[in-house]
């Protein structure tokens, strides 16, 4: 192949990173602007799932697997956030 694989992957990821960041900014704007509590949690929910994908992509870019366990934990933690907010909205208690 003419081009080196590593260079091609790095070029692709440098193109994709700003697009991801643009989407994150839009989610953050919705999270700050969101009139109701469910809107805010929905925006944070989506932001964090996409952040997990972004972390996985970055771990290829930086060639080190140190970011990957954080992506798994982030996905689980955001799910817990959803459950807590829903539980609070319904029964005004967090189930401690």
């Amino acid at each position, binding site marked *: 192949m003419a081009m080196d694989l*590593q260079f091609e992957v790095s070029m692709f990821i440098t193109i994709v990173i700003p697009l991801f960041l643009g*989407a994150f900014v839009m989610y953050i704007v*919705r999270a700050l602007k969101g009139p109701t509590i469910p809107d805010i949690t929905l925006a944070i929910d*989506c932001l964090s*799932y996409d952040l*997990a*994908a972004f972390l996985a992509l970055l771990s290829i870019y930086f060639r080190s697997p140190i970011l990957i366990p954080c992506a798994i934990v982030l996905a689980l933690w955001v799910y817990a956030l959803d*459950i807590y907010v829903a*539980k609070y*909205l319904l029964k005004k208690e967090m189930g401690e």
Partner: protein
Amino acid sequence: MASTLDWVLVSIGEILVAIGVFFDIVAAIGMLRFPNFFVRLHAATIGAIGGAFVPLIGVAIMSVGCDFLGRYRFFIAGAAAVTAVLILILAPVGSHVLAKAAHESRTAVVQPKVVDHLEEDRMTRGEEK
């Protein structure tokens, strides 16, 4: 040098990541422009599944093909696949629970409303109880 199999895997992964980024931006725009919470749920599930699951599968496939990563590529591929499966299961459940809570506690008002059968059912159930 990278064999053709590596190139095939990397290109498949990159196509999936590109599709995922497109879904991600569309979902983000949707989250901004939709009128109320319940319509934004559509954008949220697109952002969660199309914007997170698809790129993660793309990363999993791409990292197997990247031979410059050495041993780490299998670790990244496995963890990305696990995260993708987790998100596939958790995202719909999370948004469903949130939607139920928002509707029942009436924090999210249904603004441009044509008809809301759930509310009517809840009213009739409310009177009977």
